[in-house]
């Protein structure tokens, strides 16, 4: 799942590179590269919600405060979108595409924050994958940051965020692999 998430990021970027090489414009209107980001967020969400969450959270009332605190991540993403994308003069297609990305950022970031702060009760997976969850959480907010810099039209910002996304995704792969190895030993 996590490998596929990184694959999606690479695919989305590849689309953008090919688009630029073939004379297309990357930031004017909707483009398919956005689906790479969405795909990666979905895979990350799927890994946490589908595989990890059931091992950590038994849905008891004991952990309700962690579930509530975790809502801070999606709320922050929504606030960022409203301030930096919705209230700008970007084309409507970009606003809609960004809204779509924000929805997926919200659901993925909730589980990453949750698994970052959640107490490791008995199976040990949460403790082993904290670094992965931290980096994946950073990735989700870098996706938001990319939307913001695109909205501001800041080319240096776009470049910096792009490099950071690449670096964080490498970190995600490494930390996930190490975490799983540690857990299975």
């Amino acid at each position: 799942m996590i490998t596929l998430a990184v694959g999606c990021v690479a695919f989305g970027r590849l689309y953008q590179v090919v688009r630029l090489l073939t004379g297309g414009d990357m930031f004017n209107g909707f483009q398919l590269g956005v689906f790479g980001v969405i795909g990666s967020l979905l895979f990350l969400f799927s890994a946490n919600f589908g595989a990890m969450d059931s091992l950590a959270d038994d849905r008891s009332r004991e952990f309700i405060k962690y579930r509530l605190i975790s809502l801070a991540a999606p709320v922050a993403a929504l606030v960022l979108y409203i301030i930096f994308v919705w209230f700008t003069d970007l084309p409507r297609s970009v606003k809609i595409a960004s809204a779509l990305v924000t929805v997926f950022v919200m659901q993925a970031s909730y589980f990453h924050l949750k698994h970052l702060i959640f107490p490791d009760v008995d199976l040990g997976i949460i403790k082993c994958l904290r670094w992965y969850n931290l980096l994946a959480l950073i990735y989700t907010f870098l996706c938001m940051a990319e939307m913001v810099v695109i909205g501001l039209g800041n080319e240096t910002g776009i470049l910096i965020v792009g490099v950071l996304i690449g670096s964080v995704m490498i970190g995600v792969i490494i930390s996930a692999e190490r975490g799983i190895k540690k857990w299975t030993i």
Partner: protein
Amino acid sequence: MDNLVYIIFICHVTPLALMTLMLRKRSRLLVGYMLIGIFVSLFVSELNTILLSQCGGDMLYVSTTVTPVTEEIVKALPVLFYAVVFSNDRDRVMPIAFATGVGFAMFENMVVLVQNVENVTIGWAIIRGFATALMHAVCTVAVGYGICFVKKKKKLFYCGTFALLTMAMIYHGIFNMLVQSDYKYLGFFLPALTYIPILIWHFKYYKTKKSRL
């Protein structure tokens, strides 16, 4: 003269449909799904015409941004139907996904042929056959792989299938963009470069399965 696309559709679909009556089990399923692929292609060709007029006739934008989305979604629907209603066994779903993709590509080639009948050459046919047809098949197989989880792991199915669908759309978009650019030769080889690893994996998978039995 009536619409040539519909004439070709009837000419191809009728004998194939009659042949399926004679076939049994898996053969019938494969030819049946190839027919569905052809039907889906006809539907998408009409849909794309509408979308092209909605986008102000910008063919490059539509083929690199809009058609990959519509085509991949519509192609995945019959495979999803099969997995939900009949069987989600990977050995059954993957071949029918491939058959849908090939059927789709076959008819799309005919539509393009009809629209550009003065400009087509043998080279064009080879490229369409090896590149475009393979690209459609590869994309549908990728989505079909995710669909196999429909009954086994529901959480993985919803997110995984959608994520694989997005990957297929991007792949399709990259292909369409490359073949219309100065790097078109790269575009022609892209599906083959993707198909070969899938083929190797497929043979290895069956070899392992056979040895286990």
